[in-house]
């Protein structure tokens, strides 16, 4: 065991989007000893008064994935692409190394659960009764390497489901009800959404957005707001569907829902929008009430799209590779390595990128436990990690790092953050009795409220060729069901139109070939049958909001350890009638739309599906969305939540927990943009803590 003595100001666990955003924003600021304030790096008056922040990041993934100089990152990324080409099942994790030392949940490992026996084939130990259906990847850059890149904001009512629709959930292990409003509202988050849209590089058309909300689009986005880049063109298929559905309604529960087909904002490069103006920086200003971040123009520089990590001129615009999930070959799609590189490298006086000396990343390091110093305000005093030596071997070095003078930021994903916290036990004496406590878990909410969008898929054949399998995964969504009074009874949902045929539900085109070969087709007949079938395939998603549920949770158990002896996430997961009823309603909506479009329905849900249930005598099946959220929820009091709205632990003065796990509820938007917005906001609180630390 080695005790690391060097003191860092900030320790960040995880190099995904949350950790990378914080690293980038912090490295852009320094402490001005004369002013006694944190200031933006380029605005320092006297360099001799600068105190740099020292930052150390840990990443469980391989070293190679974090070497971001041009030649190394190109080499590693090409290996990912080659692995993707050769994998038969091109699932989200397929391009990336599957490490025994830092295993990842994989959709290929998910199986039906027969209670009371868990499915423990993969990394997750799943007790169900429903398998949790989504994966993530532990790698430099995190799961943004295989996200689709869709970036809608949440809607104002998503933040106040109790206030608006009277929804309450049970407290842990109790029938007592508790509200599920967020500690911040949409307006508070709005400026940070703009910063997140800048950092990710969102393409979209504000004027074309249309949502079922009472706010006008001008109120929702702000007057004259535009996204950094123009809209990603809607697919040929989208246009055919829009032509067929525009101006029509769907009827549910005796209510008419006008269908609104909206071009999706996306974190993928298109053409910079001249109206967006200059290049920008995110900069902190000190105010009486603490630090405020804001987005500011750089006067002499036009906004440019940021291409790949190895060559900023590659991937400046989407090239239509149609493989966003699992990998964009040119990195026109945003991934967190782009932000991480901005943290690790800074421009020097000659405008050349140079490695920043005060931040480092230590890879192959699996953080698994935190220690607490009770004599010192319950500060996190140590972090414990296992550093493995090579890709092949499971030998590791145990390291313990003194963090008593550091700010610790857990930025692993929503399985890993609670896993680390739940593995961090300590004993205190209360009223003369020894009591065992868990780090950050006074509320008993750590690991609870695990959520995902339940993606019900419906598929069929369009009456004419719509030439699917082209373009980004989805370029249009139906926003009609994202909000409404029905939310007091069943989930809201968003319906992306899917550009990639039946590849997800039916494993097309391979399954179509097998089917036709099974019928004895060959030659011209086979070719015609395939052309007919594959050019008409339509797929709709119904991404159904799951409510927080204290029984849907990540726990740990000494029985289930990984190759390094670290607990694996143990999952309990179920659906409630709220979500099941939404799937019933979504299917009714799908049937009406299919009928109007003359789509021949091929949707089939069977008992063999992994996530399937019967509701009102009808079977429904669904998939995961990869939206793993909720396991360290933020809230406005310490009894009900793990962190405050700045992602700071209620229980420990030097601990932040960031990422999708902070989401109080899920809403109907893909979570990455929202988690980015509140993670950026958390930096304001971190800067205040750093100021206090440096002043003392």
């Amino acid at each position: 065991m080695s005790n690391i003595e060097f003191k860092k100001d900030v320790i960040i666990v995880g190099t995904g989007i949350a950790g990378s955003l914080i690293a980038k924003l912090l490295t852009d600021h320094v402490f001005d000893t004369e002013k006694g304030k944190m200031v933006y790096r380029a605005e320092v008056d006297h360099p001799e008064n600068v105190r740099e922040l020292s930052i150390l990041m840990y990443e469980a993934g391989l070293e190679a994935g974090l070497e971001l100089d041009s030649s190394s990152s190109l080499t590693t990324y090409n290996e990912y692409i080659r692995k993707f080409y050769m994998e038969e099942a091109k699932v989200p994790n397929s391009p990336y190394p599957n490490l025994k030392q830092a295993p990842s949940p994989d959709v290929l490992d998910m199986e039906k659960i027969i209670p009371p026996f868990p499915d423990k084939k993969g990394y997750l130990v799943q007790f169900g009764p429903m398998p949790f259906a989504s994966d993530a990847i532990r790698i430099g850059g995190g799961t943004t390497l295989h996200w689709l890149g869709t970036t809608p904001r949440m809607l104002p009512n998503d933040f106040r489901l109790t206030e608006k629709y009277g929804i309450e959930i049970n407290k842990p292990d109790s029938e007592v009800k508790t509200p599920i409003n967020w500690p911040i509202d949409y307006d508070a988050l709005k400026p940070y959404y703009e910063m997140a849209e800048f950092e990710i590089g969102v393409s979209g058309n504000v004027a074309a957005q249309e949502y079922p909300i009472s706010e006008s689009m001008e109120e929702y986005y702000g007057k004259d707001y535009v996204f950094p880049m123009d809209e990603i063109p809607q697919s040929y298929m989208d246009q055919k569907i829009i032509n067929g559905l525009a101006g029509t309604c769907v009827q549910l529960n005796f209510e008419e829902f006008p269908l609104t087909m909206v071009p999706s904002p996306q974190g993928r490069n298109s053409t910079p929008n001249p109206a967006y103006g200059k290049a920008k920086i995110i900069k902190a200003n000190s105010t009486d009430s603490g630090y405020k971040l804001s987005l500011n123009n750089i006067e002499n520089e036009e906004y440019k799209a940021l291409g790949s990590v190895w060559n900023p001129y590659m991937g400046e615009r989407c090239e239509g590779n149609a493989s966003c999930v699992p990998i964009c070959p040119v990195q026109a799609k945003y991934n967190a390595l782009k932000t991480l590189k901005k943290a690790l490298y800074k421009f020097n006086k000659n405008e050349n990128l140079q490695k920043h000396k005060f931040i480092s990343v230590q890879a192959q390091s699996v953080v698994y436990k935190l220690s607490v110093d009770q004599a010192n305000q319950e500060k996190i005093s140590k972090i414990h990690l296992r550093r493995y030596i090579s890709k092949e071997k499971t030998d590791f070095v145990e390291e313990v790092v003194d963090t008593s003078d550091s700010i610790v930021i857990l930025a692993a994903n929503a399985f890993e953050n609670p896993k680390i916290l739940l593995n961090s036990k300590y004993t205190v004496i209360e009223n003369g009795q020894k009591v065992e406590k868990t780090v950050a878990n006074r509320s008993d909410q750590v690991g609870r409220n695990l959520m995902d969008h339940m993606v019900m898929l419906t598929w069929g054949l369009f009456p004419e060729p719509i030439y699917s399998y082209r373009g980004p995964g989805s370029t249009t969504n139906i926003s009609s069901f994202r909000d409404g009074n029905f939310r007091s009874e069943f989930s809201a949902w968003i319906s992306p139109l899917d550009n990639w045929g039946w590849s997800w539900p039916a494993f097309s085109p391979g399954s179509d070939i097998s089917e036709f070969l099974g019928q004895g087709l060959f030659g011209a007949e086979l070719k015609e049958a395939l052309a007919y079938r594959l050019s008409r395939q339509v797929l709709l998603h119904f991404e159904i909001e799951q409510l927080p549920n204290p029984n849907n949770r990540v726990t740990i158990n000494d029985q289930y350890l990984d190759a390094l002896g670290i607990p694996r996430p143990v999952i309990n997961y179920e659906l409630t009638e709220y979500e099941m009823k939404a799937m019933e309603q979504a299917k009714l909506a799908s049937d009406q739309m299919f009928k109007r479009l003359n789509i021949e329905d091929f949707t089939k849900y069977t008992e063999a599906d992994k996530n399937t249930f019967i509701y009102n005598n009808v079977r429904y099946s669904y998939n995961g969305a990869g939206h793993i959220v909720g396991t360290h929820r933020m809230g406005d009091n310490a009894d009900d939540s793990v962190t405050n709205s700045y992602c700071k632990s209620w229980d420990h003065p030097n601990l932040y927990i960031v990422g999708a796990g902070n989401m109080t509820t899920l809403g109907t938007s893909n979570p990455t943009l929202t988690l980015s917005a509140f993670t950026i906001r958390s930096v304001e609180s971190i800067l205040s803590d750093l100021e206090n630390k440096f002043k003392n």
Partner: protein
Amino acid sequence: MIINKILNVDDYYYDVFMAISGTLTGFSANELQSTGLAETYYKHILGQIETATFLEFLNVSKSILENSFSQDQLRNAIQSEIMADPGMQDMSNNIITMWYLGTWEGTYVNELSYKESLVWTVMHAHPPGAKQPGFKSWAVQPVNSNS
């Protein structure tokens, strides 16, 4: 020795392989050649299965091709001599799948076999992650479609 001769792609068996591949897939031999994989596939099959089994398939194919003088005759002969025989049909389906998907028994032959798999051509698309058609291409009817 025929076993040695078949490994040589100059041998007439290679031409039989290409001709029957064309008939089975519905693509012209030129289109198959232009994948750059014809020789690779021929050798790959030889590496994967008993030479005698492949040889039997090629001999049957050769006789079908030599004795068919119209497309109808050819199709009927394939129906009766290949598709009606389970072993021959398996072989034929494997060959069709290799051209269409780039896989032999579920495994890609190499990276090129994925990129050049013909199913994407049939649907006027391209293999995901390769041969990208460019910005905005997905917003219009495919340029290579005749419909």
